[in-house]
């Protein structure tokens, strides 16, 4: 009801106005993630950026993807990123903040070239846009697709997650036989002890 009233009041551009508001919130968030001096603050800005992208999914009527985005990205992945930031010592980027050195200029022109290529490709293509169909249960459709046509990739995704978690634990596990000073020597020591046994 209120939605219809607002649509009439803004001459049918209500969705566009909300889209531009979300976009104008999300660009400073993204710039803050990339360029902020305090890196823990950029880690927290990542949560806000994923929240705005979740709102974008809600505008696109993809409710299931939006909630999965909130659960996986805005809670899970940013939590892991913030914990990794707390475990490392990030005091190196604030030294050369304002200097326009070579890597910054080359990165700027690279990203500009990528954006220009993508923009001309988007603009020159005429997409076969279909009229919008309301009343489709997206969760039902996605579930049917995952169980019929895409069941093998779904199983492979679960296998990938399992192997990635086991590999992450194996990599991050603190190996006590390898010390910081001389890992080669300790390997030799291990070899000697094993041969004595």
């Amino acid at each position, binding site marked *: 009801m209120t939605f219809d009233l607002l649509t009439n009041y803004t001459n049918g551009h209500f969705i*566009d106005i909300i*889209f*531009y508001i979300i*976009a104008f919130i*999300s*660009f*400073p968030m*993204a*710039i803050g*993630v*990339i*360029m902020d001096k305090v*890196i823990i603050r*950029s*880690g927290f800005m*990542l949560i806000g*950026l*994923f929240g705005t*992208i979740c709102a*974008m*999914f809600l505008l*696109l009527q*993809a409710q299931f*993807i939006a909630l*999965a985005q909130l659960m996986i*990205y805005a809670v899970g*992945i940013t939590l*892991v*990123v913030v914990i*990794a930031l707390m475990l*490392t*010592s*990030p005091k*190196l980027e604030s030294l050369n903040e304002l200097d*326009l050195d070579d890597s*910054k200029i080359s*990165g700027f022109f*690279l*990203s500009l070239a*990528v*954006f220009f290529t993508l923009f001309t490709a*988007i603009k020159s293509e005429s*997409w076969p*846009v*279909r009229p*919008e*169909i309301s009343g*489709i249960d997206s969760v039902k*459709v*996605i579930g049917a*697709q*995952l169980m019929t046509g895409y069941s093998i*990739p779904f199983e492979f995704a679960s296998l*990938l*997650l399992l192997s*990635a*978690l086991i590999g*992450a634990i194996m*990599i*991050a596990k603190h190996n006590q036989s390898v010390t910081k000073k001389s890992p080669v020597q300790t390997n030799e020591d291990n070899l000697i002890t094993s041969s004595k046994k």
Partner: protein
Amino acid sequence: MNDQTVATVKPRQLSDFIGLSFTFFTSLMAITYATGFIEKIMNFNYLEICLFIIIVILGYLACAMRANIKTIVIAGITMSFFILSFHQSSLNKYLIFSAVLFSIGIYGLTVSRNAVRVLMSIELMLNAVNINLVAFAQYIDPIELKGQVFAIFVLTVAAAEAAVGLAIVLSIYRFMASVDMERFKLLRW
């Protein structure tokens, strides 16, 4: 007492004025473009690209005149996004939005020296791809919604990538006591 409060207030400098005037000028340009006033004066095909190039050149000059870089970048990106996507169709608006996020992610990937920030910008690029997929699913394939299924697969791959990448960063930090990308020379042939 008064002397202390006066001393803590930072005086306004020329660089702040340059940043403010850049923001004002770009927003004025965007509003006049939205009302269609510029199109009446000069009417040719690549008008928005010309305005975008003008904004980029002005922003580079303002950065060279020691204005605040973050102000210039945020104002330039938001206003050039508004100019480039205003007269497009609604699918193209989402595609241009995701292209802007993707190029911001590429900039962070090439420039940043902290390894965790590199992983963050990779997550940003994967999110831009997700927006693309969901927009295509909504506008081109609204019955079968295959784009949302692919977005779910991108989500799982991103979760696996984040877990393995952060584990690698932690183990390298434990080995070298640094997360600086310019000191990672372990894989140097």
